[in-house]
């Protein structure tokens, strides 16, 4: 740690109003403190590219840093939530320094505190979506509905078709059939996809990744140490995080999303572009997500993702094999971590029957927030 001693400093501070029964939400206090801290620093919010938050206990929210990024109208390149109780206040600072030292951002805003005497009790228990009162009463009850809204909009704007969604499902299943560890290995045809029932139209059953059990883990060390270990290193060549929205319904664009800035950052770090990538492991909770990711990752123009996935282009042997282990759609969910391990297996050249010949670079997508939050890795 000595090499970072004295290299970073606190440049702005902001307290919200403080007292008992202020009658304001925890989020309102967080935002007040945030705007005061930025003003104190003399920094416009456009200068803030790092955001670390801790959700209010009264309304513990998913993706809280993304919610506050949306409220503050910023698109940070590094954002995360911490959950270390009373130590969060100081652990945030350490996280901020780590992110700065890593070069993931240049100015971090850390926000913490709560409306302890004014907050309503957490009547639902567990983590909530900050606007679920504006979703669940209308029957937005699961992921197919929310991603379906985006897919429908993409179809409307660009003429994307259900058959093109189906091409993604077929490719993933074909790859899974070559992966002994995959959950769903029975071959699937486009006709099978088209015959499957609607779940949240335009999504059919075979557009949706099934619920599966599974996990994956990854060990990372320095390049120096890596050279002495059992396997040839799979280097992290590029890392990029992107944000466009915490809630799709209110996103400025539903079809140009967080994948774009995440990939731009990862390409810049790796000094590579889409033309240099041998295979892609793209988060595919729904078929549509692969299509929009291919566009925003630069493999084709905006609106051409549907045509791109046709004709076997994303299958093994095609121009850009995608989800070579079967993806969430056919391999398993594991919150997308199997995509990371599959990318590494491919770079090691250890994928057996599903090996992409000569694979030297892989791009991996992790996403959430209905395409509003993306983290892109380039492995090689």
């Amino acid at each position, binding site marked *: 740690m000595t090499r970072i001693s004295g290299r970073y400093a606190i440049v702005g501070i902001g307290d919200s109003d403080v007292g008992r029964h202020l*009658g*304001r939400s925890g989020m309102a206090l967080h935002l*007040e403190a945030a705007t005061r801290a930025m003003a104190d620093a003399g920094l416009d919010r456009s200068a803030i590219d790092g955001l670390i938050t801790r959700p209010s206990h009264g309304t513990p929210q998913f993706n809280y840093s993304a919610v506050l990024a*949306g409220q503050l109208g910023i698109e940070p390149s590094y954002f995360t939530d911490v959950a270390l109780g009373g130590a969060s206040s100081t652990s945030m600072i350490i996280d901020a320094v780590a992110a700065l030292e890593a070069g993931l951002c240049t100015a971090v805003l850390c926000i913490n505190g709560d409306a302890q005497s004014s907050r309503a009790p957490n009547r639902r228990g567990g983590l909530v979506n900050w606007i679920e009162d*504006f*979703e669940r*009463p*209308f029957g937005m009850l699961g992921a197919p509905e929310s991603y379906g809204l985006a897919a429908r909009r993409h179809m409307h704007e660009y003429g994307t078709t259900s058959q093109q969604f189906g091409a993604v499902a077929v490719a993933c299943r074909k790859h899974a059939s070559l992966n002994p560890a995959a959950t769903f290995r029975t071959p699937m045809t486009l006709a099978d996809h088209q015959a499957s029932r609607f779940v949240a*139209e335009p999504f059919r059953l075979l557009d949706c990744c099934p619920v599966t059990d599974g996990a994956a883990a990854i060990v990372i060390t320095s390049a120096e140490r890596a050279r002495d270990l059992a396997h040839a290193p799979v280097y992290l060549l590029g890392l990029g995080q992107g944000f466009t929205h915490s809630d799709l319904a209110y996103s400025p664009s539903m079809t140009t999303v967080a994948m774009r800035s995440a990939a731009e950052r990862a390409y810049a770090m790796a000094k590579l572009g889409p033309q240099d990538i041998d295979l892609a492991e793209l988060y595919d909770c729904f078929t549509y997500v692969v299509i929009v990711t291919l566009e925003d990752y630069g493999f084709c123009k905006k609106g051409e993702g549907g045509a791109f996935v046709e004709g076997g282009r994303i299958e093994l042997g095609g121009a850009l094999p995608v989800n070579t282990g079967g993806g969430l759609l056919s391999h398993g969910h594991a919150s997308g971590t199997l995509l990371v391990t599959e990318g590494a297996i491919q770079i090691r050249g250890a994928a057996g029957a599903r090996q992409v010949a000569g694979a030297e670079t892989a791009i991996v997508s992790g996403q959430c927030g209905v395409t509003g939050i993306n983290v892109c890795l380039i492995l090689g």
Partner: protein
Amino acid sequence: MSRPIIPLANLDTKAFWDGCARGELLLQRCRSCDAYRHPPAPICSHCLSAQHEWVRVTGRGSVYTFVVVHETRVRGWEKLVPYVLAVVELEEGPRILSNIVNVAPEAVAIGMPVEVTFAELDGTTKLPVFVLREGKERRS
């Protein structure tokens, strides 16, 4: 609705739900830059001002996107399928997630003109939902 999910108002959203209970669609409007916003939030994401007023809006808009929900695993809701979950773009600018009701799901299209109405949930809470506006041109 066999098992309604009742929205829980909080310090940021109470005025919205109180408006619905009266049959009024209210949006926050920033006192600093006049931007409307939805869903309700403590600050304006355009200019960061915390000063706002609640304004009754026309309730007119058009369908921005939608899904037809055919399946759900949430108990009670399976009796309601198929239903239309839609994002409506309001004339004032903001979008609102809601339902399109009193129409066959296959008749719904992006750009279709709609207007708000209120569906009673439990005697005290009303949901803002949308119906087709007849005789209007579609836009997208």
